């Protein structure tokens, strides 16, 4: 299973590296969200600095929708999804591999957005350990839940509209948890933050486990 996961993740990342959709479209989109928030909110009153954590994670959430949609689109070209079913790859391995590839892209995106938040909103990074652990736990949950839902909406004509409707409510706890943990870290009170990291961890474990079990059944006829 893990061998298959590594194989699939390697394949997805290599394709992303070649096509550069993630770097050329998803990343600029995420940064654009940060800029739009600055337009919508008052930039001078410190509001942006206080809201930085939440805005950061909203941008990540929207980018997750795009990233998982893209990850499924790879398989929709030229019958590749059928080929995956025929390949003899373990469905759980395919799920973990695709989720891992999405997670790597999301982490890279978060580094970029982090810089953006510091530059654009003037939020200073502090509590580095909590920030990093939160990002890892939240990303695992986002990638797992996102990959699971992306295959649910795969092959539908309505997928662009259906996926956000299905996915965003599910990701609400991640948004809440990651934002609070980030705020705790930025305010220099990491104590409470770790409770949120635990919640993010539970979320990630639930979705990785459920996806591992259910993906086969979903891929079966996608």
């Amino acid at each position, binding site marked *: 299973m893990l061998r298959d996961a590594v194989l699939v993740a390697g394949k997805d990342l*290599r394709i992303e590296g070649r096509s550069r959709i993630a770097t050329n479209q998803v990343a600029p989109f995420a940064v654009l969200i940060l800029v739009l928030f600055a337009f919508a909110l008052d930039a001078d009153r410190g509001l942006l600095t206080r809201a930085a954590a939440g805005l950061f994670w909203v941008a990540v959430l929207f980018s997750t929708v795009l990233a998982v949609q893209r990850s499924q689109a790879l398989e929709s*070209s030229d*019958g590749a999804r059928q080929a995956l079913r025929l390949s003899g790859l373990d469905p759980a391995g395919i799920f973990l591999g695709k989720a891992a590839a999405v997670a790597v892209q999301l982490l890279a995106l978060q580094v970029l957005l982090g810089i953006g938040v510091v530059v654009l909103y003037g939020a200073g990074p502090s509590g580095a350990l909590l920030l990093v652990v939160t990002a890892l736990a939240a990303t695992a949950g986002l990638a797992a839940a996102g990959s699971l839902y992306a295959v649910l909406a795969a092959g539908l004509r309505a997928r662009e509209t259906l996926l956000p409707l299905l996915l965003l409510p599910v990701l609400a706890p991640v948004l809440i948890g990651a934002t609070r943990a980030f705020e705790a870290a930025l305010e220099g009170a990491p104590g409470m933050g770790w409770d949120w990291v635990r919640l993010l961890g539970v979320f990630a474990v639930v979705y990785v486990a459920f996806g591992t079990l259910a993906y086969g059944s979903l891929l079966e006829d996608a």
Partner: protein
Amino acid sequence: MAPAVRLRAAVCLLGTYPALAGVDLSVEEGEVVLLRGPNGAGKTTLLRVLAGLLPVVDGECEVLGHDLRRDPRSVRSQVGLLGHATFLYDELTVAENARFWARAAKRTSADAHAALDRLGVEPRLHGVPVARLSAGQRRRVAIAVVAARQPRLWLLDEPHAGLDASGRDLLDGLVRDAAAAGGTVLFASHELDRSTALADRVVTLAGGVVRHGGAAPAARATEVVHAP
């Protein structure tokens, strides 16, 4: 020994349309069977059913000793399907595609490269992204991907389409070798001269059922094989 393929009154629906309306077919291991019939007869659907891509909703369906209705997954690693689509990732190179699919089927990169050589895909093409290949070259790579899996059951949908003369010869050689090694081959083709020469038996489909040649030779000793 159980036949490689055994279908009894198999029904397969595409939506509510019965693409297969009760197929009876039996194929022994090592046989090369040509599926023929007009467009819309159900040839492609039949191949996809045997690969486990489409479910059989009624009747019986056994492939390589496994009941496809109960567990469609266990035969997959032993089946190679060449479809109308080539199942290749455009962004990856020829060699990367071949290696990925070979390793997915628990074969080695060496198997992948051997299969590419076998299909006459020159080494200079190995580093080229699949998107830049011609349709014929792409087809050869797709066949190599199937060959690299070393399947026990080959399901080839219009394998000759898009290939040049030398490609067709290479393909025929591949099929003969596969059968000689005990593999079973079912292929659909409109290239009647070449195909009937290649096949041990011709099965004619029409209207989602088998009209001719559904039983294996042993079971219909008195029947005349109807091959034009």
